[in-house]
């Protein structure tokens, strides 16, 4: 039988790429560090907030010094673009030379990538610094929107919906109530009394979508279906109270609900311009940080709703076809280091809360995380204990589609 040289090509290609293909094993961390040296890691991360971007620059500088690798922040306006790219690469047969090495991810994007086998792993639980999160005491670092992460993504930070307002405008001088609304129901009454002073980011922005979920949890008669896939319940019936609520709320929003700001940071800008009196953010320390940056007046105060607010953990993951997995792991591990986590939590830097279990850290590391509880713009101590868990990721996409169906092009 004649040997067809062309038929050998795939085998040859496999032989050539073989040694590169062996995924680095984080158990042998020294080997990972060696392999990572000199690599260029492309990190696709949402870039809508310059505080975050500056933190990523700092990380790039630190990993360059420490581990001799180049970290490039590929700036995204929506993480779904990265998911789409990895999927397209696999569909086109690009199995080992993808263009993304690390993705900042959680929720529905993680669910989509994991379901489609687009992630490398499990790696996260074997990263040297992962132990500092003490997952046995903090199950949220291994759970993403009800789904177990199973080591396919490494925790990076914690977010929780936090409302903030300008205390001077709520001083009780007759124009406005003394207290901002402390529940979703009270928010509607407040918006009716103060038209044009509140809004939420345009769907599909993740902060805006989270507001929908927050409202749905507060309004739904039974929240149990929200923690199972959306297909398993009667979507229209479960969400009917939400749409009634939004229909009533929208005419009293900023721009009468005919336009919405693009992102959470734009809400902050509108607060700073005095267009809004009440806003919310995913980063509990953002208001205090914005005061320090002269973006917001120092009369700003933060609070969470009495019924609690949605909180989640955000992660980093490695696509299956990343050519620089070792470098990506080194970056993921660095992000978990007490140094990087403390710097991230610093109000002057980003203000994103740590995923490490600070109480269990050694004394020297613990002091890095001291939070300035005296800061009047910060939440009062203990406010974040009322964390509502995220619904199943399918609700996010279903709500987004239904919202667009209802409110786009009206």
């Amino acid at each position: 039988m004649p040997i067809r040289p062309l038929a050998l090509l795939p085998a040859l290609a496999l032989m050539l790429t073989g040694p590169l293909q062996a995924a680095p094993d984080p158990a042998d961390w020294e080997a990972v560090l060696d392999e990572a040296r000199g690599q260029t890691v492309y990190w696709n991360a949402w870039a809508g907030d310059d505080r975050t971007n500056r933190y990523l620059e700092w990380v790039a500088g630190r990993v360059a010094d420490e581990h001799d690798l180049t970290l490039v922040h590929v700036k995204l306006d929506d993480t779904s673009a990265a998911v789409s790219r990895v999927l397209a690469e696999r569909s086109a047969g690009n199995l080992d030379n993808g263009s993304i090495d690390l993705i900042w991810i959680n929720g529905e994007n993680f669910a989509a990538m994991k379901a489609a086998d687009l992630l490398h792993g499990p790696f996260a639980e074997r990263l040297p610094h992962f132990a500092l999160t003490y997952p046995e005491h903090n199950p949220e670092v291994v759970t993403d929107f009800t789904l177990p992460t199973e080591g396919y993504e490494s925790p990076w930070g914690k977010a929780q919906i936090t409302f903030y307002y300008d205390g001077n405008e709520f001083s009780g001088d007759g124009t406005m109530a003394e207290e901002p609304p402390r529940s979703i129901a009270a928010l509607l009454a407040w918006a009716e009394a103060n038209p044009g002073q509140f809004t939420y980011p345009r769907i599909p922005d993740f902060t805006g979508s989270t507001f929908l979920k927050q409202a749905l949890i507060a309004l739904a008669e039974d929240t149990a279906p929200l923690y199972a896939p959306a297909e398993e319940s009667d979507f229209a019936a479960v969400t009917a109270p939400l749409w009634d609520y939004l229909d009533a709320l929208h005419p009293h929003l900023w721009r009468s609900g005919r336009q919405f700001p693009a992102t959470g940071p734009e809400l902050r800008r509108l607060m700073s311009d005095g267009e809004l009196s009440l806003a919310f953010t995913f980063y509990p320390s953002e208001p205090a940080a914005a005061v320090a940056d002269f973006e917001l007046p120092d009369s700003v105060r933060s609070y969470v709703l009495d019924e609690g607010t949605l909180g989640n953990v955000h992660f980093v993951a490695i696509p299956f076809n990343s050519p620089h997995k070792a470098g990506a792991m080194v970056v993921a591990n660095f992000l978990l280091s007490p140094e990087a986590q403390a710097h991230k939590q610093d109000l002057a830097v980003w203000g994103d809360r740590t995923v490490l279990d600070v109480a269990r850290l050694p004394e020297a590391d613990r002091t890095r995380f001291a939070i300035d509880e005296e800061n009047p713009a910060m939440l009062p101590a203990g406010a974040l204990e009322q964390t509502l868990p995220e619904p199943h990721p399918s609700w996010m996409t279903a709500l987004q589609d239904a919202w667009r169906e209802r409110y786009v092009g009206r």
Partner: protein
Amino acid sequence: MLRFAPWLITTLLVGPILAGLAMAVLPAFGYLPALGGTDFSLSPWQALFAQPGLWRSVAISFASGLVTTAISLAVVLLFLAGAFGSRLDRWIRRLISPLLSLPHAAAAFGLAFLIAPSGLLARLVSPELTSWERPPDLLIVNDPWGLALMAGLVIKEIPFLLLMSLAALHQLDAERRVAMARSLGYRPAIAWLKVVAPSLYPLIRLPAFAVIAYASSVVDVAMILGPTLPPTLAVSVLTWFNDPDLSRRFMASAGALLQLGVTAAALASWWGLECLVRRLGRGWVTGGQRHAGERALRLAGKGLILLAAVTALVGIAGLAIHSLAGFWRFPDALPQAFTWQHWQRALPSLGGPVTATLTIATASTLLALGLALAALENEQRSGRHPAQGRLASALTLLYLPLIVPQIAFLFGLVVVEALGTRPTRWLVIFGHLLFVLPYVFLSLSEAYRRFDPRWMRVALTLGATPNGAFWHVRLPMLLAPLLTAMAVGLAVSIGQYLPTLLLGAGRVPTVTTEAVALAAGGNRRLIGVWALMQASLPLIGFVIAVGLPRLLWTHRRGMRGSP
């Protein structure tokens, strides 16, 4: 060798566009094996037409194409008619190059900061005139009718149409025509509109088409100023393309084709309008009216262009103020303090994108310049006369990348990238070349063809070879227009958003992609820094284009030419 230049240009321009369109057609009908689409079907179209707000997107894209062009063209014609030879005329002519080099995104940001309810204008008049203590709850930027979008485009298209008109006017001997009409008793502006404008329009028809196509399919300006619920069609297509649900890519391809149809429909409607204006205008031109409306025409001619130019300049000034602003509450007209902090913070991240921008711009411009020179030199040596202005001429091909909506064929090209080649800077440079080449060619061809052929003949009779005459006589004498063409090329490349984004896969960050990416965050101080950076880079090219000939030919006034 030279003989191949026109072929090379044609292939370079037409090839990728046809390939790109073909690659968009197949997925639009369900065929894209890489994503599991192996059967032809109409389901992408069904999904597309089921999109909420689709027809609104379509209507706004269509209207934006026509309205932007009509207003820009009217302003340019009125200006030429009403301000010819005035001091304003000279001032505006000096402003054309900087205004033309101003990237669309930077101009859009400038306008947005100016007219927003919390923008500069509202701050200037508040609270004294308006008693606004806080920004009014008005929907101005991102308005659902796309008016802000059209305004932003008009500001940028006026300089383009004006430059094209000024170049074409050289062929028309406008002064003598106007003098003739005036001797018959026509007032100057009316005379110009009646005897020059009808001959001028056919010469700037293709540029007008390019404006229609651009305005109906632009992405970056629409992201900054355009409506949001729903956005314009081109922006929607981009969103669908990036959806994690890959089946949406089929729909995005269908949307890209729909965009092609919308642009074609806008062009067809424009053609219809041309017929209408020709029919209605004939009576007016030959009616014998010599005075009526002269004053209004002159006033409009000067006022409108002044408004556009001042808006652009104040917008840029607004960017500068924001980039230096400390705490700045509404309705303070100026920040309470100025700070370098935003620049200092942005500086470390500016370096990479600025280098990438300049590398890509220089490479694509030099390539384009080489190709344009080869084609023009070939034209001279073979003695062929270019048929300018006629739709059927080869020149039309040059306009192809400017008339086919970017989003329609770039998607097809991205399929190439998705097939496994990693996005490289070269791919981006090639993508930019598609848009840089036409502008460089158009900008250079006028001077090249007007170059007195006797210089070359003298050189040849003195024993120089054709190549020697080209290098030692023609090029040095054409230095000023060459440098201007380069500056135009650089400016075009620096302003490109969609080709950089799609072909570079977001991994080739330029100042333009970075600035537009910041739009969503709404941090005006940071946007100010980036947009100002984006606006100043092309200026470097124009400064060199004006300064270098003066420096080199300090003692030879005749060689300096007019840039």
